[in-house]
């Protein structure tokens, strides 16, 4: 017979092994794990720590805050000829430690939103390109558990982004205070925690929106283009520029993610204080929070539906 002898050996392994062979006989206990939401979250957190894109993205975001919100803003404020001394004093005051509860939030709608959306888009699509999502999901009994774990992982990344935002703001503001010869006085801890919460909500919303785009597109480049075109092209440029002249767009702006972020950030700025860039609220803070939460929920729903219904071929 053209058939090798059937051997129920307990020492079989592929040629080349150097390590001792563990027992894998019929008597060996089956130690299969049961993938759940919690194991999925553990895997997500392990993976996040190892993903360069997460660290690079948070690093770029930190650098952007330090560079544009503080260094460039400080140099142009104190060096510009067109500001009055009162304006210069006001702008520098915003950059001091006492302004950490609101100043850094002005960076979110301008360059925070696109960065978070891009990060989400990459995280949403990258595992389709590599095929790794198939390998992981194949042992989950339901895709919902896995997706819930992924989305929870994103909320944790958003929290890390919010912490980075506040930390860089604190460090940069201390440097500004030292350079400008001002005192170092921080706002109350409760104010800082509220700021942290606002930054977390904004980061979560845009990461989730980008992630939904990535889950839909399943291609990194396409997902990133979608995220950038929407956040920068449609919301910031098209609607942002036309809103002052088209009343409908002015109202609509407050219900879109970037507009709600601007409104939320503006609500933190004390009366009589100004930031660079200037922030104009389109809605109340409560509405802004509700809008951002609703967009986050919508993005999560889209990701669930898309991931749950489509084949992983």
């Amino acid at each position, binding site marked *: 017979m053209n*058939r090798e002898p*059937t051997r*129920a050996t307990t020492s079989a*392994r592929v*040629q080349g092994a150097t390590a001792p062979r563990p027992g894998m006989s019929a008597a060996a206990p089956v130690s299969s794990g049961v993938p759940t939401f919690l*194991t999925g979250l553990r*895997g997500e957190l392990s993976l996040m720590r190892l993903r360069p894109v997460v660290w690079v993205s948070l690093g770029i975001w930190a650098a952007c805050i330090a560079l544009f919100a503080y260094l460039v803003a400080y140099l142009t404020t104190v060096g510009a000829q067109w500001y009055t001394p009162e304006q210069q004093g006001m702008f520098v005051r915003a950059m001091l430690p006492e302004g950490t509860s609101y100043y850094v939030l002005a960076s979110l709608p301008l360059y925070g939103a696109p960065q978070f959306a891009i990060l989400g888009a990459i995280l949403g699509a990258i595992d389709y390109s590599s095929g790794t999502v198939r390998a992981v999901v*194949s042992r989950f009994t339901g895709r919902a558990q896995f997706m819930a774990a992924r989305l929870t992982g994103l909320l944790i990344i958003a929290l890390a982004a919010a912490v980075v935002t506040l930390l860089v703001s604190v460090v940069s503001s201390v440097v500004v205070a030292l350079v400008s010869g001002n005192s170092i006085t921080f706002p109350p801890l409760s104010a800082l925690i509220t700021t942290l919460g606002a930054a977390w909500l904004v980061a979560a919303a845009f990461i989730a929106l980008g992630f939904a785009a990535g889950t839909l597109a399943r291609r990194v480049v396409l997902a990133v283009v979608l995220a950038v075109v929407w956040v920068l092209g449609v919301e910031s440029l098209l609607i942002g520029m036309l809103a002052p002249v088209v009343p409908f767009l002015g109202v609509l702006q407050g219900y879109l993610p970037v507009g709600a972020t601007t409104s939320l950030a503006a609500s933190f700025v004390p009366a009589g204080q100004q930031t660079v860039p200037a922030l104009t609220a389109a809605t109340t803070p409560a509405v802004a929070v509700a809008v951002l939460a609703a967009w986050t929920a919508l993005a999560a729903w889209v990701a669930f539906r898309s991931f749950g219904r489509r*084949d992983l071929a």
Partner: protein
Amino acid sequence: MNQTYEPNRPVAPQHRNYLVEAAGISKRYGDVRAVDGVSLRVAAGEVYGLVGPNGAGKTTLMRILTGLVTPTSGTCRMGPAVGTGSKPRQVAGEGEGRVTAGSLIEAPAFYAAMSGSANLKLLCDYWGVKRVAADRALDLVGLSAKDRRRPYRQYSLGMKQRLGVAAALIGDPQVVVLDEPTNGLDPESIVGMRDVVRELRASGRAVLLSSHLLSEVEQVADRVGVLSQGRLIAEGTIDEMRRRLQAGRWVELEVNDLAAAATLLHDMGLVTTAPGTEGAADGHSAAGTRLRVQLTGELRPHAVNSALVKAGIEVNCLVEVRESLEDAFLGLLAEPARNGPATPGEGTTA
């Protein structure tokens, strides 16, 4: 021979513990039927080989069984049936009584910047398996300590394949689905991989593996299903397949009286042809002294020889020829339209 498993020993279907069960699975992509009404079962301690040419639907079927692809119609289940009235579920491995299923489907997929070991440990985290299971699986596939620390992007095709199989074996799953597991492996590693599959069977796992090479599958499989254009056109044990596909044994004879020999053997109920004249009307009309006789049942070559000698026909040469199952398999694939879909169970050949 330390043989603890008898692949040809008949086992009554009702006594078998089927861990994989698919019923009437179909998958359409537009007008294309990737899988068309496939039903199959794989029992604990059984290796089921799925063979078919590229594009036959093997990978799609495996994706359906592992829940990666939703079938257009049909049901599948992984895990023991729960009670007498349990119905197969739509999604593999769902619900009570489920089993874990490890799989390597199509190409292995891992994070390129991470080492092989880190990749498997990450999977352990995702699947709720202790990280030591990663080392255990790597031991099993023979990836050296040095290699498992290298970034995955530096792996050769064979190393990638080993890592993919190791991932499928993490946590000793009760069902193992391997899509072309020997791709890219060197001959020694292929033999080792067969041993791994045999050991999985010996330890009570249900193994479903695919290949486009029947010769590869027949080395380890207890039963084989032949897929062609999405349809399961034949199914059975290797010997059943050989018998039913008439891919069995032949003897080639050199005799002094071809006509007399052919008449005698025909009277014995044997099919004869003259080599090189298979397409001829009478099968042995060419001039010459050589004749090919298909052996049926328990008939042995010496019995043919004795019959001819007793009849006064001189036999100058007798050679037993074993036609490979691969040839019969290719013949079967050549006419898929003639064959209806096979139904699950033992020894179904259309």
